[in-house]
Structures are given as C-alpha cells and as structure tokens.
C-alpha cells in the first residue's frame, strides 16, 4: 500500500542515518578496558589503541610536576607507573589508596593518561569473609 511504503521509507531513512552516525561516534570514542596484568601481554596494534586501565593508587606514589602528575597504579599484584598529562584538575577523590581509572595509551613502559577518574576509598573495609555493613559513597 502506498502510504505504508511512504512510512516505511521515512522510518528507514531516519534509522539508517542514525545508525551511520552511531557507527562514526563509536569509532571516535571506543576505548578498550584492560587490567594491569593484561597490559603486559598486549602486542602490536593493540598497544596503540586508546584504553582504560583500573587499579588502586599506591600510597605515597603521587608526585605533582608542572603539566604532569606521576603516580603508580597497583592491581592484582602488578604495578603500573602512570603520567597524567591532561589539563583538567585531578578529581578531589584522587588520593592515596583510592580506586582510579585512567584513560590513555601505554608508552615506553609508562602509561600516559589523558583522563583520570577516581572513586572514594571505601569507608568500611570489610574483612574477608565478614559481611559488615559496607557503604559506598554517593550510591543512589
């Protein structure tokens, strides 16, 4: 039927054009997530991808310089030296022993990060095996 066809065309045009935009946007922003341990086993093209790595900020490792902040990220027994070179101030939650997520690329044994996100260190350390009421900040 003619009007069904018209609707069909209209709907397809919208969906296809949005799908194209989605594909472009995906390409522009896709970021792989790796653990510190995985990082050492990456090779070749994978190393040049933009990626995110999560870990805990080693106590006492934060050093601030002009234009750069160095620290060490620890996770699963491994450690990773990171240099944050972004222009935005580091989040207030970025302190010793906070859980941090860095985004950037590995370069020459270090990790050069453009974005750093940090979460508050848990206020309640639940000893293994115990269920003490744990709280996480700002949980909704």
């Amino acid at each position: 039927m003619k009007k069904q066809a018209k609707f069909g065309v209209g709907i397809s045009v919208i969906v296809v054009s949005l799908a194209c935009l989605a594909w472009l946007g995906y390409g522009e922003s896709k970021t792989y997530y790796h653990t510190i341990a995985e990082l050492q086993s990456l090779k070749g093209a994978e190393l040049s991808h933009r990626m995110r790595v999560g870990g805990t900020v080693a106590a006492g490792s934060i050093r601030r310089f002009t234009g750069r902040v160095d620290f060490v990220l620890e996770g699963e027994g491994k450690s990773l030296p990171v240099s944050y070179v972004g222009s935005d101030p580091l989040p207030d939650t970025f302190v010793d022993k906070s859980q941090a997520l860095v985004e950037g690329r590995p370069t020459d044994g270090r990790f050069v990060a453009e974005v750093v996100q940090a979460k508050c260190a848990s206020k309640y350390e639940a000893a293994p095996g115990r269920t003490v009421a744990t709280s996480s900040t700002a949980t909704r």
Partner: protein
Amino acid sequence: MDVFGSFALILAFICAVYAFGGGIAAIVTRHPLLVKSTRQAGIATCCLIFIATFSLEYLFFSDNFSAAYVVAHSNRALATFYKVAALWAGQEGSLLFWSFLLAIYVFSVLIAYRNKNGELMPYVGVILAGVQIFFLTLNNFVASPFKALAVPGANGAMDLVARTDGNGLTPLLQYPEMVIHPPNLYSGYTGFTIPFAFALAALLARYPGEKWIHLTRKWTMIAWCFQTAGILLGAHWAYAVLGWGGYWGWDPVENASLLPWLTGTAFLHSVMMQEKRGMMKVWNVWLVFSTFILCILGTFLTRSGVVSSVHAFAQSSIGSWFVGFLIVIFTVCLAAYLKNRDYLKSENQLDAIVSRESSFLFNNLILLVSCIAVLSGTLFPVLSEAVSGSKINVGAPFFNKVNIPIGLFLLFLTGVGPLLAWRKTSVESLKRNFAWPLIIGLVAGAVIFALGCREIYSLICFSLCFFVTATIVMEFYRGAKVIRVRSSASYLTSAIELTMRNTRRYGGYIVHMGMVLVFIGLAGAAFNQNVQKEMQPGSSMQLGKYKLVLQSFDSKPEANYTGLRLNVEVFVDNKPLMMLYPERRIFETNGETGTMVAIYSTLREDLYVVYAGQSPDTKLPVIHAYLNPLVKWIWFGGVIVVFGTLVALLPNRRAVLVLSGAKQSAPEPLVHGMTPSVTYREGHD
C-alpha cells in the same frame, strides 16, 4: 529504635506477602472479605514502611552510633538537614528510601481508588504488592539498614561496638542538592510503578481501554515530572560542585535516569493516539512495561557496578537480585500480553503521512531510537565482553553524535505536531499554520548566522527554537482571541482562561516551551571557552569580556571542614563588577576534599571559576575559569517544564453558560485545520 525499625520492616514484608497472595485469592474467588482485607494489608504495608523509615531517621537525629549505617554516613558535627539526607547516602538506606517513596504512591493509589474501579483495583493491588515484596526482601534480608556495628571477637562471635562518633557524610554529598535531587529522582523512578501496575492490571483484567489510559496518564505525568526535575537537579549539582565545567557526561548512572524518561515521554504522547483514535494499544502497553523495566534496570546499573562509573561503586552481589526481578517482570508481562493480546486490537489505521498521528509516530520512533542508542552505549562494555572478550567503552562522542540530531528532529516535531490535524492535513491548513513560524525561524537563523555563529547544529537549533516558539505563541494567541471576543478581557486573562479550560493541551504547550528553553541552553555548549592559569595576589587573567584579578587567599575553619578560599575580583571594561569566592574544602573526619565552584550566572553566559589546586612547584593557587554561554536557560527551562506539567495536571475549568443579559460564554475554541471525523473526541479530563 533500630530493633523497632527492623521489626516494622519485617512486619511490612509479611503484610505485603498477604496482600499479594490473598490478593490473588481475592481475584479468583471474588470474596468481598478477601478483597477488603488484602487492600487493608496493602495499606498496612505502606504504613509499616513509613514507620521503619522514620525509625532510621530517628537513629540519625539521635546520633546513635551503635548502628552501622549511621556510623558510615553521619557524625555529630553534621548539619541537621544533611542528617536527613544521610538516609539515602548509602546502599541500604537508599533502598529503604526507595521502598518509602514507593509506599507513598501505593498508599495514595489504594486510598484514592478504594471505592472506584472495582474490577481493576484487586489486580493493581496484587501487582504493587509484588513489587513491594521484592524491595522489602532486599530491605530485610539482603541489605538491611538496621545492622548493628560489630567486630569479630575472641572466639569467632561478633562483639557489638558503640562508637562515639561516625565517619561523616562524603564531602561531595554535603551540598543542598543532596537533599533534593535523590528524592525527586527516586520519586520519578518509583512513580513509574503505578502506570505499570495499571497497564498490566488492565491487560490481565481485560479492562476497557479508555479508562485505564485515563487513570494511567495522570500518574505517568506525576512520575515524569519528578523524573525531569530529578535529572535536571542532578545535572545542576554536577555543574555546581564537581568543577569540570559541564553538566552531563553520558555517565552510565546519568544515562540510567534518562532511559525511562525517554520511553515515558514517548508514552505521554502516544497515549493521545489511543485516546483519540483507538490506535497504538499494543505499542502503549509495551511502552509502559518498558518504562518500568528501564527504571529497575537503571537502579541495577547504579548499584551492581556492572559498568564502571564515577557514581556507581564497587561490585556487589545485589546486582543478581535485580537481574532476577527483571526476568520475572519481563516473563509476567510477556505472558499477560500473549494471553490477552486480542483485547489490544487497533480500532483505526493511519490515514496519511501529513497528520498528527504520523507526527506522534515519528516522535515515538526517534525517542525509542535514542533510548536504544543510549542503552547500547551504556551497556557496551558488558555486551562487547560477552561477544568478543574485550571490554570496550564508548564515550561522549558516540552519544552526542546520535542524540543531537534526534534532539533537533524532536524539536522540529514539537513545533509541527500540534498544528497538524488528525487523520489528514490539507495543504491550505499547512500554509495557514506554518507560514509565519517558518519565516520567523528562517529569519532568526539568518540573523544568528550574520552575528557570527557558524556551528551548523547550533544554527539549526536556534532556528527551530524560534520556529517552535512562534507556533506555541500562535496557538495561545488564536485561542485567546476567540475567548476575548466574548468576554472583552485582556489577552493575558483570555490566555489564562483558555489554559484553564483545556489544561492538558495548553499545559502541554507550556511544557514544550520549557523544553525549547532547555534546548537553547544546551545549544550554548558549542561555544564554551576556558582558560587555566597559576595566579598570585595581584595577577589577572582574561576570559571573554571578564578580567579576573586574584586579590588574596585565606583559610577559614568551619564546623567540620577547613575552607581554602580565593578572593577573586571580576572586572568588565576595567570597571569592578563583583567578587567571586572559589573554594576548596578539606574535611576533617576523612581528609577528603571538595570543590566549591564560584559561578556568576547571567542569561547570556556563566562565568564559572574553580580553585583547581596548587601548583606543585610554586605552591601558588591555580585558577581554572570557564565561560559557558546560555547555561541558565537550561535551569530556567526546567522550572517552566515542571510548571507546565503541574498546570496540565489540574482539572479543566468548565465553560459556564450564563443566561442573563447579552453576555454568553465563549464556545470552545476550534482546533485549527481539524477535519471533522466520526471518531473525533476532544480531550476532556
């Protein structure tokens, strides 16, 4: 008091189980005693939840630090209104708060309709009880807020501990919006349970379509209003407190709140198709189901840690409970649909592409595409890991690329839709209605282009905003003119009278106007500027027309923090304008820091100044200043949206027929371009 509270909570659970089981028995046997007692049980469940919540609040107010939850989120020095808000600062308390708000809705529904809709209410009661059972299970057995503080003792037993003071509330949460954003947002999330219950109940009971739509619409509008307010308050909070200069980051938790808003908006529009033309019944039922499912999915994303976010936290096993609940909901909805879908057959077909039906159809289509896009983008790490083994994240460029064109198309439909006729619009009517707004839109676009704007999306956005504003103003003008002819009142009075006679329609136009303002505010983001500089007293920085001079800095101890404050003077054309005080706060109890942004906000732009930190070498303060155009329009637009929704919720004022003298009441203003149709029914509340 904590024993009292947890006892109330377990009683609530028992009442809810009876309301559910007994309710099903009531539907099957239709025994009046069962019907009544299960309704009473439903009301009792709510009251017991209120008691439990107040008990927890009492623990906060009385500084009872033997309760683990109070220790975790409060301390003696905390201001009173933050002690109230500490209730929802953590997992257990926020889940209880969810139950509390849901109980307010359930209580209102059970009381309001206790003598009406007798065929439907037993089903509604059962469904609401079912949802409450889930949350009460979490409240009682999985994440209890009444746990006492204890540490492992000598022989493996737990010893109770009473602390003298607590850990305090996280600094990021010590901001007025902590007191209003979660209640609003949660009221939105829980509010969508009510339309869901009515829709599912109507499907199960095969209740007449028009009636359940009527009931559902009002409750959906209430929930939608809270959800809108909640989202905008969250954005404002992020803007004012975090100091990154933005208000929306496409973070998973932000997206989680947007998803039900998108389907809820789609539903509020497509519902009109069902009312006027008996169409889209299947679609509407699934939209309501999806909205509720997305609410539960949203809280699952936030609490389970399945996707990493600045808001959501550590991995927690509570996620699996939500997954289970989602599976149950979906199964029930699907079963109900498959069993009774013949009851949802459409009465009419789409007649023409240039009609109001088709504009609603496109409205729904793109809202749904946006919803799917945002959902996929948010869940992408989970999906990609399942498919390819590596976790891939998508960021703001993806979401913006897809949603900006969608937003612009929606804006276009907002102007066009209300002026199209049902079924088919004639060319004459098109010319009459759209000539002026189209011209105004194009002229506005040309003027803005001439003023130097070259961003294509912003140009389109501003043109469309003027276009839509023109269509809305025209609607009010035409309607007011008709009323004015008979009553000789001013245009303003006539416009108000017009609105009060058809609150839903003209309230809706006010909401649209509010959204136009929000879009104007969003369009300003394309022109943001910022500059960062290390400053010493006496030095200055320039941003746009503002010159910022650091006069001095000091440190001020307060009740539970020390404030490091910068005194910045702002000059425009070398004339002093005002002082701004960007601040960093260091909190004593946990050593955390918070950023207080100093904002000078005008309709034209926001001057946003952040004390970014200290330079590591020189220890001098670093100031990061932003110039964000048009941001105030977003908040202002949000207020208009909420106001418009409240207007739309009011009952219509009936036109009074006065028989004395020559004065007669004005007839209902004609809707333009309306071709009379057999099934035409103008919406009355």
